């Protein structure tokens, strides 16, 4: 008996909400990156779920692309965090606010 789509949608919605909360509230830049991963993965779950329902392979292909792009994004993000740490001795985003008006 397959899991009904509404359950999966609610699950992915919760996952996305957790990710959004993490991005908005955590100070640690790495944790923020991790939260972004959560949000992406919630989208991936949706892709896969709708792909299976509609009998199309494009959903799974899309999620594979998303994972590849996410890997690249994390590489860039970690490089920025590393550069931040070298320059400012911190990775707490609330301490980096030189753009304050």
């Amino acid at each position, binding site marked *: 008996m397959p899991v009904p789509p509404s359950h999966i949608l609610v699950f992915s919605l919760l996952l996305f909400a957790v990710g959004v909360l993490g991005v*908005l509230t955590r100070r640690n830049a790495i944790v923020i990156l991790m939260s972004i991963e959560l949000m992406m993965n919630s989208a991936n779950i949706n892709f896969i779920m709708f792909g299976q329902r509609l009998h199309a392979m494009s959903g799974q292909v899309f999620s594979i692309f998303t994972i590849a792009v996410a890997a690249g994004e994390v590489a860039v993000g970690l490089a920025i965090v590393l550069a931040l740490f070298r320059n400012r001795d911190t990775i707490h985003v609330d301490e980096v*606010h030189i753009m304050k*008006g």
Partner: protein
Amino acid sequence: MAFLGWLFTIPLFPAAGFAINGLLGGRVLPRKAVGYVACGAVLLSFLVSLGAVLGLGGAAQLPATPGLTVDAEAHRVTQVLGSWMPMGRSASGEEMSVDWAFALDPLSAVMLLVVTGVGFLIHVYSTGYMAHEPPPAHARFFAYLNLFMAMMLTLVLGASLPVVFVGWEGVGLCSYLLIGFYYDRMFDEKTRMSCADAGRKAFITNRIGDVGFVLGMLTLFWATGTLDIQGVLAKVGGLPTGVCTAAALLLFVGACGKSAQIPLYVWLPDAMAGPTPVSALIHAATMVTAGVYVTCRMAPLYLHAPGAMLTVAIVGALTALFAASIALVQTDIKKVLAYSTVSQLGYMMLAAGVGAFSAGAFHLMTHAFFKALLFLGAGSVIHALSGEQDIRKMGGLDKHVPWTHHTFVIATLAIAGIFPLSGFFSKDEILWAAFNRSPILWLIGAVTAGMTAFYMWRLYILVFRGEERFSEEARHHLHESPRTMTVPLAVLAVLAAIGGFVGIPGAIAWTDGMADRFGRYLAPVFEAGGAAHGHEAVHAPGLEIGLMAVSLLIAVSGLLLGWIFYERRPEMPALLAERLNGLYRLLAGKYYVDELYGKIVLAPYDALCRGAFLFDKWVLDGIVNAAGYVTLATSYISVGFDTYVVDGLVNMAGYTVRGFSWMFRKLQTGFVQSYATAMIFGIFVLVSVYLLSTGH
């Protein structure tokens, strides 16, 4: 003859010597070369002068030369070098200008030969006298000396009053420079006068006279419309006596300054601060006679101003007597000679004043010989005694410095007026002319002659005879001067001895040809241009010879008195000084003229200066400061306006912009998370609006 065309080079040689020694001497040129350049320049001047003077007699036959004008009647050659001050046309249409022109006539010829001849001897002497100076001072000395010669020759040769005045001021400047030559030394301990002060005193005193000279010059220009000497003299006959008198008296004020007459004589005794050759050249033989020279040069003017003539005569006679009396008690060898010079210059002025201009020029010449010799002899004595000038610390030098001694004796006898030395003839001519004018003038002159003989013999005895009173230190260095100094002494001694024979008075001449050759040589100068004959020649040979005998007697008794006082009975002077204490102190204090001038001229002048200073300080400075304060106050107001109104507007614009930007600024927190929150909130709103609007 050809030398007449070279007239302008006569002052140029020493000027070139001045330039060479002034620019190169002391640094580039060795000591010897400096001496050679200086002496050589003057020697060249002397030779050209000699050539020109010898050629003067034949000037009438001279082929026409551009720039050269010959006046055969007056024996005058004028050389015009170019226009100096062109002044356009006068009201009567005449072309007016002052030329750079030199004129040679018998009077300037005499001066020329005296200045260059005696000047050359003194230059040679100076090479010995100044041998111990450090090189820069040595070169400076000779440069100044040459500059002096150039200026003096310009004065003598100048054909117009401004050219003469250039030389007149130039010699004044050199006199100042040379009096203050040892500018760092003290000259008079008692009055704290430095040598530089003495130079300033001479310069300023002369300036007072020079004002007179300039005013006299301008008076003549106003009256005659020309400044050329011959042009002026040709016109004085047509001028009112008052104008002539005014001009003559003003020129005489200048002459008083330069020739050290009462009341402007005070600088000359202090001029002795200069090195001794300077005293000999400038303050005895040449510069100080410039006043007499100019008076003689302007003779026709004076002859048209009897009042001025009388003034000249009286001032001259009084100066002669006054200065001679001061010389009686001086103890500085050079001061005695300085007062003697003032006295002799008084004689010359007396001669000019009684109209015996050629006698004045004659005495000028003989005085140049014997007074230069006396100064050089004094310099030799000072040199021998390592700088000692006090005659109370001399004595018995005759054995040690024989050359100096012998020449000094000749000069002393010459100035005393002993027959047949030069002073006898020139002084007698003056006394004879004075007697013809007024026996009182003669009496003053005769008394002065007696005093002269006395103080000169006193000087001679105190320096050369009696016991040796100098210090052991001085004795150790005692030596006769080198050849460069003794040879000029010898040459001058010969001139001082025989120089008078050119002017043997007619009364005692063997032949008419010998009688008064000097006067006859100068006669064209004083007779030309319609000027009246100087003094009416009184033909009374018996009286003239009688007066001669009297003056000779006076001179001899002066000498005798000096001998008794200082050689036979050396205790007499002190005794007499004690008996006549008041008179002695008056003479030793030089009649307190310096003090008197200090009281009546300098003190009010100081007060005036102080008053002017206070006026400056309180009134003028007050006005200036008030203007400053007003400006300051205005600027405060201006600053206030700027600060609060102008700047206020500008700042207000800024504050307004800042105020508005404040609220937008708050959005820019710099926290990425707050931006993200806003973004998500926005998406939420947008989605909500979309969903609500589509009606689901």
